């Protein structure tokens, strides 16, 4: 429960051709700069395949959904492939409702996501 913090800790990690953005904390409008920075860094390093790893307990709200979609829009312009893992069943349902899953597949685990992206 990293509730108090209005920002995220994001670690970049390479697994083969896939760059994992390991995102700690809630995904809200406050995540915009941390997520934008991490994404830019990964892209500058030439990442063509990205995996957004979100904590299962993360609180994701409408502001966070907007931030994620903005990242996805950028990946589409750059022809990067993106997948998502870690989210709960509830947010899988929501990502589906909103249409996020049209642009990024959601996987049960990092392993399955990396496999699918590779």
């Amino acid at each position: 429960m990293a509730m108090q913090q209005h920002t995220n800790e994001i670690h970049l990690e390479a697994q083969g051709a896939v760059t994992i953005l390991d995102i700690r904390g809630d995904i809200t409008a406050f995540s915009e700069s941390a997520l934008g920075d991490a994404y830019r860094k990964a892209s500058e390093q030439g990442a063509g395949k990205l995996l957004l790893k979100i904590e299962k307990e993360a609180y994701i709200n409408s502001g966070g959904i907007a931030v994620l979609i903005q990242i996805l829009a950028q990946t589409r312009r750059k022809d990067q492939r993106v997948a998502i893992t870690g989210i709960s069943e509830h947010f899988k349902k929501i990502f589906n409702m909103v249409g996020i899953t049209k642009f990024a597949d959601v996987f049960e685990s990092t392993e399955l996501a990396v496999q699918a992206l590779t």
Partner: protein
Amino acid sequence: MQPSASNTAVKIVLPNILGYERIAMACSAYFAQLNGLPPDRIEDLKTIVAEATTNAMEHGNGGRAEARVSIWFESTPEAIRVTVKDEGNGFQNTFPDPDIERIMDDRETPVGFGLFLIRNLADHFAYRQLPEGGHRIEMRIAMQP
């Protein structure tokens, strides 16, 4: 008549601070669990409570520090009902569902997901301007799917 008239209603009054919607979410989760709402519907409830509460803070109360958000939780055999009241003037427009394809193409800004979630997760919702001032949204999550 305030929604809190029932003998089992819970009321919570929050300051206008983003992040404090977490308190309302926790309240709603425990209230719903005590009243037998299934776990997956509790998740839906938490999400719509969070969205209605942050909307009340940001749009209804316009971020004013001295404004308050009041929330009532009620339980009936049919549904959990949540009412979120702010001190604002309510909706000035109607808002269509955001279109993710258009957003991805930069033809639309990524807003409107809060109401979208409420519209899609609540089994019923309605808002109205109050004669005594302020605005409230009432939302229900049905006990049976």
